[in-house]
Structure formats: C-alpha cells, structure tokens
C-alpha cells in the first residue's frame, strides 16, 4: 500500500480518483493473460512446423520432451524474465534521471558488456596466456563483468552519486570510450567480429533453465527492494531538492537504485545480449495507457517488458522460418515504430 491508499475514508478514496485504482488491476490481468498466450504460442512455434509441434504436445515422446520442455519453454520463460528485468531497469532509470528517454543502458553498461565479450572471445581465440582466465569465465559472465565495470567507471568518473547530470555525462563518456576500445580490438581480429555481432544484436536462443533461473532470482532481488524504494521515487518526481527537503537521503537512494539498475542490466545483457528498446518502451507504454504511481509503474513496467520481449522472441522465430532473426532486430523495429507513432500523435495533437 502506498501512503496515499492507506486507511482512507470512503470520501477520500473518491477524491483519489477511482479510475486510477480501478484500471490498474484489469490492465495487469490482460498483460499477464497475453503472456500466457505468448508462452503457449512459443511452445508450438519453432524450426519444426506448427502441426508437428501440436502432435508433440498431444502425444509426448523423448524427442518432444527435449524440444518443448528443455528448449522452447525455458526460452519463453527466460525471454519474459529478461524483458521484465529490462522493463524494471527502464522504469528505475527513467524515474532516477527524471527523464522519459532514459533507458537501462544509459550508464555505459552496454558498451562495457560488449567490451567484456570481445575481450573474452579474443582471449579464447588468441589463447593469450595472460588472459586465459578471461576466456574461461564464458561469454555471459564476461558481459556481466563488463557491464558492472563500466557502471563502476561511470560512477567513479562522476565522483560519486552526488549529481544526476554528471552521472549522465560520465555515462556518455564511458560508452563512447569503451565502444572505441571495442572497435579497435575488433579491427585487429575481424573473425571475432561475427561472433560478437550475434551477441550485440541480442539473442534469446541460448537461454536454458539455468539462465532462466538466474534471471528469475535476479528479478526477485531487484523487484523487492525497488518496491520498497518506490516512495523515494515518488518524491524524486517532485524534484531533487524537494525530495531532499522531505528527509530523504538522495545519495543513498541514488546509490541503491544504481546497484539495482546495474544488477538488472548486467544480468540481462549476460543472458540475452544487447536487446534494445524494451527498457525504453515498456515504461512508456504503461504511462501511455495508465496514470500510475511509481510503485504501480515498478509492477507494470516489468510485466509489460516481459510480454514485449516474449512477443519479439516469437516474431524472431516465426518471421523467416526455419531461420531466425536476432531478437534485438525485432525489438528495435517494434520499438522504433512505436516511438515514431508516439511522435506523430504528439505533433498531430500539438
């Protein structure tokens, strides 16, 4: 319960605008229903045709068991969880930076992850003795470490978390410099570039139950503290000075939100690569359809992001069957279309 909803008389509840409270739950139910439908569809869409898949579902054997329950289902569940983490990260980033254009990769985590993967791939290829351990940790861990390292560098460059503007600027600097380093490394070893691209474009194909479990655990670890901090996010909506005057510790709040944001982004990047636009669009989509408090946004954005990435994953498998599109390309197309639509609607209204 937020402060506003707690122990109010009937009269006060009427003031609160019943519309706001009454539309949230149906919206959530519809979104979760879509998720269930998409999960069902994910089970029957794949390299085999739909007919075969349905037969598998009806009369299971060892083969169908492997394909349906150990390849397709973890992929669908994992895609939802990754999308949910991106949605949550996007909601946190947009509230923290009080900017509707903020996305989870804002603090250089994307470039950091790309550099981490490049270095790990190069280490495997070149068998550099000094870097052998880097190759040993695997691509997902390398991406995670790279993303965390980049965010740490951003925070260090902005000399802590005292100012939001300097954090943003430091994030831009880190992103550019790390991208330049990555490009330089790739120039020296063109073979790595292809493997690297598979990762950069985002890919849900590598998700297994272990990955899904990890994403689920991290989602829980980020979601619960984020909800606990939602009152602070509400206060931030009134401006940083006002929030500070209310008795909040801004540096503390910022630091905790940054940790949650980094954990969510780095884990997602490690599991599915750089999937763009979901983190940006999910909170937008929620705010377009509902007028929500920060707490409701923190619940709705992950649910929306999960459904979005699941849908994108489904399209990526179905569009050019039996081949697959990288899921990042699909999300970029969908997200781009949505933003253009938003832009047109806005200019028309203006």
């Amino acid at each position: 319960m937020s402060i506003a909803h707690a122990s109010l008389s009937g009269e006060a509840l009427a003031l609160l605008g019943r519309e706001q409270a009454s539309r949230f739950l149906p919206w959530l139910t519809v979104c979760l229903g879509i998720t269930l439908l998409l999960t069902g569809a994910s089970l029957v869409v794949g390299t085999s045709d739909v007919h075969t898949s349905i037969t598998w579902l009806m009369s299971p054997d060892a083969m169908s068991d492997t394909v349906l329950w150990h390849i397709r289902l973890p992929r669908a569940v994992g895609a939802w969880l990754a999308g949910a983490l991106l949605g949550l990260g996007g909601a946190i980033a947009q509230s923290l930076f009080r900017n509707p254009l903020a996305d989870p990769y804002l603090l250089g985590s994307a470039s950091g992850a790309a550099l981490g993967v490049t270095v790990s791939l190069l280490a495997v290829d070149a068998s550099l003795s000094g870097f052998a351990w880097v190759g040993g940790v695997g691509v997902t861990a390398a991406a995670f470490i790279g993303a965390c390292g980049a965010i740490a560098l951003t925070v260090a460059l902005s000399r802590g978390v005292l100012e939001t503007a300097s954090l943003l600027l430091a994030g831009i600097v880190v992103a550019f410099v790390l991208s330049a380093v990555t490009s330089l490394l790739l120039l020296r070893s063109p073979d790595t570039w292809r493997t690297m691209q598979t990762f950069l474009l985002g890919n849900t194909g590598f998700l297994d139950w272990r990955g899904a479990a990890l994403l689920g655990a991290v989602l829980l670890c980020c979601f619960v503290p984020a909800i606990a901090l939602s009152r602070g996010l509400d206060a931030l909506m009134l401006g940083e000075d006002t929030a500070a005057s209310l008795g909040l510790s801004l540096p503390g709040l910022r630091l905790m939100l940054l940790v949650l944001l980094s954990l969510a982004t780095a884990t997602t990047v490690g599991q599915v690569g750089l999937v763009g636009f979901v983190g940006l669009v999910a909170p937008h989509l929620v705010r377009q359809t509902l007028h929500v408090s920060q707490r409701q946004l923190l619940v709705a954005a992950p649910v929306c992001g999960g459904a979005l990435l699941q849908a994108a994953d489904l399209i990526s498998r179905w569009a050019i069957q039996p081949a697959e599109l990288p899921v990042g390309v699909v999300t970029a197309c969908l997200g781009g279309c949505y933003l253009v639509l938003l832009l047109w609607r806005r200019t028309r209204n203006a």
Partner: protein
Amino acid sequence: MPEAGRTLDQPLPFATPGISCRDLSVAFGSRRVLDRVSLELAPGRWTAIVGPNGCGKSTLLRTMAGLVVPQAGSLELHGRPLQAWPRRERARRLAWLAQNTLASDLSAYECVALGRFAHIGWLGQAGPADVAAIRRAMAATGSLPWGGRRLSSLSGGERQRVSLARVLAAEASVLLLDEPTTHLDPPHQEDIARILRRQAWECGTTVLSAIHDLSLALMADRLIVLGVGAVVGHGTVREALAQNWLSVAFGTPVSIISHDGAFLWRPRLEAQAEIRRQSG
C-alpha cells in the same frame, strides 16, 4: 491570534528562535551570493523576505533548508546546529517549498501525502494522524476537490496550492517558502497570506517566505529586506518603512501608501488619466 495587549512589535517571550543564522556566507564559484548574513526568527511570526531579483532570497531559504552548504557561518534550528539533526528529525521540524513545482504523474493527494514522509518513513503506513494532517492541509489550501487529479493536469496556481498543502501537511515548526504566491490570482494570493499568518499566530510556527508582491509582503509581521547579498534591515514593517529599507534595497525610490491601516505599494508610474489631463 496574539493575546490582547501584546503588539507584534514586541519580541515574543520564547527563549530560542525557530531558526537562526550567524555570519552566513554562500558563494557559487567565485560569485558571492550571501555575505555574512545574521538573522534570528522567532516562533509565532510570519516574516517576509523582499528584495530585488537576484539578491539571494532563494539562496537564503535554500541554505536555511540545508540544501546549500554555506562557505562560512553557522545555522541553528531550535538552538541546535542544522547539520547535527538527523535527516528525518529535521524534516519533521523544517519544511521547504520550492519556487516552482514540477508537473508529474503523481496525484495531488499522493503529492500532499509525501509531505508526511518524515513521519511515516519508507515502509510505514499512514496512520489516522497522518491522514488527518493531509486532509487538514488540503482543506486549508482549498485543494481537496482535486485530490485525485494528476499534478500534470493542474494549472500552475492549483499545483502551487497542492505544494503548499504538502508543506503544511508536514506540520513542521519552521516553514521556509520560496514565493508561495507565484502563479496565483490575487484573491488566492490573499488566501495564502491568510494561511501563513494563521499558521504563525495560531500554531506558533516560524514562517519565512520570499514574497514578490510588496503589498502582500507588507502584510507580514516582520520584514527582512535584502539588498544584493546582504541584509539591509530586519524588523517590523513600520521600522522598515520608517528607515526606508525598501528604497535602499531596490536602489530606487519605492513609494508605500497607507490605507485603512494597511500599507500598499503604489507604482510610481503616473496614472493614465493624469497623463491625459496634462497633455490635453
């Protein structure tokens, strides 16, 4: 209301001021905004800060609210150094209103409820006392009818009243208000002035507000007249007028007329009729 026989020109019988500062200096980079400002503000008084644009009114309020760290000088809230107060303890005693309220998706009620953050905390529930405080503050500012509306859908004046309700809901003993009457139409400006006066006189709150409108500022119990970066004078309205602080602070003659016991600022522009009469 003040008890009979006591006039507002006399000091109040309270031992410690609500908030005070001594030799306060604030600089942004090489630009010194406040230079050795010393003030003591008694409880139960509404004090208005007036002065020309850029003289440091907002900076003084922000520094007193603990949002700007001064280069030199000391600040005390209820006789204890401002920095020594734990954050939330301080927020329960001192509330600050920004010059502009940002539009957001929060509902007016949620915004006012945030004024109780220092009482409720991160995870606590709003108790009956909190809800009562919120309702009282919203009723006082006339913002109850839009409780469910989003801040972004309110007009500037409506939003300003919601923000004032947020500050009142904190039930702090010191209120620092930066232009609480901006965006408001004259009758509502008067309402706000009445609220501030009542808050000071009836609740014993220390109210300090920067106010642009000179006539409205002259309704306050006391005036702080700021020149550029320094206090020209701090005293009752009568003292301010007798010693001509306003003209000194603004660097130009300021004409104040008295009407029915109230002081009004009169623009020195000649009335149109007068101009026509002279030219005709």
